């Protein structure tokens, strides 16, 4: 069981013709695997990540998650599938300002019917990410590192098989970056497959494999 990308391409129409943001990419991610993707801005990293997360439809190729092609599903089914299988940590600050930390972490649990008790799993994830003491605090009172931990706790609440993280340590200081990377490694060791896009070469050692994205092509990074 894994995420499999086969000849995945994403094209955009531009004035001077078609532009391939992602060009025939093949990739496989097993549970417990931790993949880094690096590359220059505009190289197609985020586009690739959005297709892996089921948020952007590829022009051609197949994205299979545990044997299912998410893009052949209707929106309701695909959304429920993503919600249960994939945890997503977006770039930058991503907490809802109208909710406190605990409720921010609980959101994915309630997007689809899973019964009522989301508090226990949310507290468990807050403990795991080291921010139990902040459960009643609102996002505007949190630091960048704390917000990133909230995003990771939220991504984990439904026990996803895969975690997709878009620059989770961007604009964090060195100490906080280290703490977040240790946390992600621990999550991978517990059996969750992780794909992380990053610009920071010093965090690559936490992953098991690193790929370089260049002009839409994905290649192994030595």
């Amino acid at each position: 069981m894994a995420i499999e990308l086969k000849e995945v391409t994403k094209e955009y129409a531009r004035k001077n013709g078609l532009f391939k943001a992602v060009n025939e990419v093949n990739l496989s991610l097993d549970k417990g695997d931790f993949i880094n993707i690096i590359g220059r801005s505009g190289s197609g990293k985020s586009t690739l990540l959005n297709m892996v997360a089921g948020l952007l439809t590829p022009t051609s190729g197949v994205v299979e998650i545990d044997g299912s092609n998410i893009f052949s599903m209707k929106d309701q089914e695909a959304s429920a599938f993503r919600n249960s299988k994939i945890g997503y940590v977006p770039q930058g600050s991503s907490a809802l300002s109208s909710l406190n930390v605990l409720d921010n972490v609980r959101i994915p649990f309630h997007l689809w019917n899973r019964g009522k008790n989301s508090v226990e799993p949310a507290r468990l994830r807050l403990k795991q990410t080291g921010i139990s003491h902040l459960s009643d605090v609102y996002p505007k009172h949190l630091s960048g590192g704390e917000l990133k931990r909230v995003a990771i706790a939220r991504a984990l609440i439904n026990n996803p098989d895969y975690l997709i993280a878009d620059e989770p340590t961007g604009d964090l200081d060195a100490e906080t970056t280290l703490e977040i990377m240790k946390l992600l490694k621990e999550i991978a060791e517990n059996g969750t497959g992780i794909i992380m896009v990053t610009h920071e070469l010093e965090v690559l050692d936490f992953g098991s494999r690193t790929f370089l994205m260049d002009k839409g092509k994905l290649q192994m990074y030595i």
Partner: protein
Amino acid sequence: MGLKPLTTRQLSKNNLRSNPFRTVCLVMVVSVLSFTMFGGAVLSQSLKNGLDSLKNRLGADLAVVPLEHESQYEGIILSGEPSRFYFDRSMEQQIKEIQGVEEVSPQLYLSTLSAACCSVPVQVIGFDPDSDFVIKPWITKVYGRKLETGQLIAGSDIVINDSKTLKFFNDTYPVAAQLEKTSTGMDYSIYANMDTMRMLLEGAKKTGMNLSVDVYGTDIDHSISTVLVKLKKGYDVDTVTTNIRRQVSGIGIVKSKNVFLSAANQISVLITFVNTIAYALWIIAVFVLAVMFTVIMNGRKKEFALLRSLGAARVKLCKIVLTESLMISILGGVLGAFLASLVVFPFSTYIGESLHLPYLLPDVISSIRLLVGNLVLAIATGPVAAIYSAGKVSRTETCVLIREGE
């Protein structure tokens, strides 16, 4: 602690709470709309009721009055302005014999005084129970028995003391019953038979008040104020009016349909104006809210992109937007209707007097119907205005939402 399930409703509620200024602005738009629509609906209905009431109460086809007293007669009918005018009672018989006249009934008007001798300064309308075809049907509705000499019937707006009596010219008269509200001058009038009128006149004389019901040098037995005329079937009002004018001199004639049409025309103009304002405001409110929702949703792209990336279906985003707009509409609709109720119901008398038109508030059931209709329309306003924004948010590709939200 936030232990409730984070349902669509709960998420919408939190959003509205976390942006109080934005929420208040949106609620105010709907409440202004609801205020105008409900207030306008009650106003229109009250005017229609007043018109119907006037139509029912006019009773006679024609009223023959002394020459140049037509406007005073209309004043009594429409606003109960106390007035006195008399002519010789023999007119009654002359008019009765004119071709096209089915029935006639005389009325005698007295005005009481704003002085210690009298409870209230009002118009007292004397009628002849044997020939009357106008007042008796109303009295029968509230007082099933024959009105005895010495008894009075009061209009609905006459204030009566606990002992149910009224004092005129230092004599006390029992009030047998009070008429239902009509929103016409009849609400401010007192009704009595001719014998009671005689007693009132005697009382006035004793207290030294000169009411002089004797324009022709005669007494009450030979003086009347109005002869109400009912036409025979098949006769035209204008033809009979001409017949009367030809055969009786020194009189003025008031056609009931003219009194009614005059009020109906004014009311029609007013209702059209009120309805136009209400409909225009509804269209403006939908437009304003649609623009506001579009601007607000543009500012919330990041939030929607986040929800989508966490696994929210497109329909969920749509539901969040529509639920928020529905909550805003409910708050605004109820607030507006409540504020309108505080104006239109307690101040109905003042509004009626200011308009100088028959004005009769709808009954409880009709008022509830108007309220429900208004709330349905006001509550629908938000979701109708938000449909475009909701559709746009839910249709947009998530990665576009993410990119534009950053």
